[in-house]
């Protein structure tokens, strides 16, 4: 039997490394597609066992009509890296007006290099520009040199 499988849905969600459980968000999302929730949880938790705790991992699951599935993991959201680099726990209350924390260009470039793993066709400079936009909306100041951060 060589008929290829047909896709039923693609499902996107973000799960902290090592913390996939049957409760929301995983439960309803996978349950709706009839997928084996615990199998996904164990698989995901094992594959993220070496990640740092609490790293948010975006996942894209392809669910097939026969209830099997495959999935890929992507790099954490840019906001996670920026928060960590700027040493902050929350964004600015008045984006664009009140600067809560700062991040150096060098650091921004390092984050861009990581994000490029998911955006291989996008030039590094474009990713940096996009990250600067994210910084601005988070109220994070971008400074030229690490010493100024």
């Amino acid at each position: 039997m060589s008929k290829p499988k047909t896709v039923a849905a693609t499902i996107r969600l973000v799960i902290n490394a090592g913390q996939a459980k049957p409760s929301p968000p995983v439960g309803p999302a996978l349950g709706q597609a009839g997928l084996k929730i615990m199998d996904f949880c164990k698989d995901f938790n094992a594959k993220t066992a070496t990640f740092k705790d609490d790293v948010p991992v975006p996942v894209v699951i392809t669910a097939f009509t026969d209830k099997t599935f495959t999935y890929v993991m992507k790099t954490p959201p840019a906001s996670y890296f920026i928060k960590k680099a700027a040493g902050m726990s929350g964004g600015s209350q008045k984006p664009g007006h009140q600067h809560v924390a700062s991040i150096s260009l060098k650091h921004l470039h390092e984050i861009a290099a990581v994000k490029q793993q998911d955006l291989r066709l996008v030039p590094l400079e474009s990713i940096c520009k996009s990250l600067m936009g994210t910084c601005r909306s988070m109220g994070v100041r971008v400074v030229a040199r690490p010493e100024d951060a």
Partner: protein
Amino acid sequence: MAAEVCSIKCCLADVPGGMAEEVAEVLLAYGAQSVAVEEYRPSGGPEQEIYADTEGRVWDRCTVVAYFPPEEDGAAILASTAADFGLQDRKQLVEAVRTQDWEQSIRDSYQPAQVGEGLWIVPIWSQAPDPAATNIILEPGLAFGTGDHPTTRLCLRWLQRLQQAGSLDGAAVMDYGAGSGVLAVAALLMGAERAVGSDVEPLAVKATQANAALNGVSERLAAYLCAADLKQPEPLAAAGIEPQQRLFEVTVANILQGPLLDLAPRLAAYTKPGGLLGLSGILQEQTAAVMEAYSPWFQSFQVEGEERWALVTAVRRTDT
């Protein structure tokens, strides 16, 4: 179980394929816990099949299904996102999802599974395809171990080899991290005399007891809740079990690399000299670290793999 609302399901129908993924990303950015993109098929319409081998293709018309936490205004976020993409005239559906709904769909997805020659796992509502085989009856639920995962299969086939070698006859078996209890129950069905299952999740302890009853082995299987923190007392000693009853001919642990590395001394203490150890829930590339952690107490290591997963087996040393 209380039918509480766990999520708000918000659907946007008939989204053009070219923008469906972007709509999904935006909804995620605005607080959706998960977003699914499916085919949009007005009732009676033809299916447009997207095959697994076509990279990144989407249907021409999609339905986007977002789940929001109950405290978010999912309906409003969906409406404003639809408007941003010029889709304000598309049908929007909002409904509460209760914890029970998706549990039922988990139920629907389990079928009998053959693990090895003459060895099946049969969900409680199914008929065993081969009544003469060793059939492990399980009620699939929230605890891990339904027979579908490669690690469960690796461990079960190992137990079957032990059975064939006579190593399970009259043996005491420890299943650490028991989940559904499938391994402990299997060992008992295969001739072990008694088994202990231990897990950090209360639901797993309940599932182990329930599955033992389904297979008629309740009297021979004891299930204990243990703390994840190894500095807490070892569960059997804490329950007043005497030292002789805390020793086993066979110890199996299907967990994950992290806990397994820390558990080496405890699992060694459970295993009689010359006893047999099976460890899984580890990836092939993690086996070296696991073997190193266990070598002060175990020898004759062997590794077996299925897909990316590995089973490490060993024999308890007599000199340590």
